């Protein structure tokens, strides 16, 4: 394994079937790696937005429960509502965990792609991270 960056049209990336021999194949691989990096940044922003949405909806539903509880003074009517909120929170958190697994895996794939020491792939990763950050981070403060 060469321990320095090289410009080359030949590389094997991550899997045995992903072997590149030609400039066209290299261009396609760089594009795929770029989109992977964009997806990584998007997942980061998506996780934060999902958490924010879940917390706002959870606080709204708990405050509604408190209002109804003080109005009706009955503890038997809000137990299905509590369990429904818990179920919603559980599903939302499970979805976030799946997003986290995807983020970890894609992050490691990008590290391994850079480890191929191919300069074109490295440019693809860096450019994809930049484009992904540029597109995704404004959405973070849009809520």
């Amino acid at each position, binding site marked *: *394994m*060469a*321990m320095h960056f090289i410009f080359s049209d*030949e*590389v*094997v990336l*991550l*899997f*045995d079937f*992903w*072997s590149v*021999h030609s400039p066209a194949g290299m261009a396609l691989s760089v594009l795929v790696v770029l989109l992977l990096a964009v997806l990584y940044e998007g997942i980061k922003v998506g996780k934060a937005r999902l*958490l*924010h949405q*879940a*917390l*706002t909806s*959870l*606080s709204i539903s708990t405050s509604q429960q408190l209002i109804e509880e003080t109005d009706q003074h009955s503890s038997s009517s809000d137990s299905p509502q509590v369990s429904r909120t818990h179920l919603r929170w559980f599903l939302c*958190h*499970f979805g*976030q*965990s*799946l997003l*986290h*697994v995807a983020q*970890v*895996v894609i992050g*490691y794939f990008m*590290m*391994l792609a850079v*480890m*191929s020491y191919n300069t074109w792939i490295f440019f693809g990763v860096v450019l994809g991270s930049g484009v992904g950050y540029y597109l995704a981070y404004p959405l973070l403060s849009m809520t």
Partner: protein
Amino acid sequence: MGHFHHVGMSMGMSSGDDNSTMAPSHHHPTSSASHSHDHMMMMMPMTFYFGFKKVELLFSGLVINTAGEMAGAFVAVFLLAMFYEGLKIAREGLLRKSQVSIRYNSMPVPGPNGTILMETHKTVGQQMLSFPHLLQTVLHIIQVVISYFLMLIFMTYNGYLCIAVAAGAGMGYFLFSWKKAVVVDITEHCH
């Protein structure tokens, strides 16, 4: 990087043989990708593989040879990834709890009608030699070391170990971030 090379070379042709028993047709892309160092391309695997024979893990004495040892390594790596996620969230909680030292600086500034207004500046922080900051530093060092270990484990390209890292991270995030989200909900009701 020289140490990585040494690990790669001691794995040597044995992992190459293992790959050849699993997938005999897959050697050609790797050997054609190199220009002048053909014999060195099979040292460290550069593609994902599933195997449990002669898998070197991080340290020179730690070699996996049987399925039982691979299962043990899977569980250990899973727990390490879970511990890493928990450590991250524990550090966040500790940081939030220790940042209760708020200093207010009040300064008189001239107002619009000649009155004097008091402008208050709030600074939140830690002192350098305080115990919370030292604890954060020690935990940070542990977190950096574990994150590099996880990266090196993923770099073995062994499919079982990579799945263990990903699953452990997911499970750790699920278990520990649940508690964190509840805490955030209670303490910051101005969301």
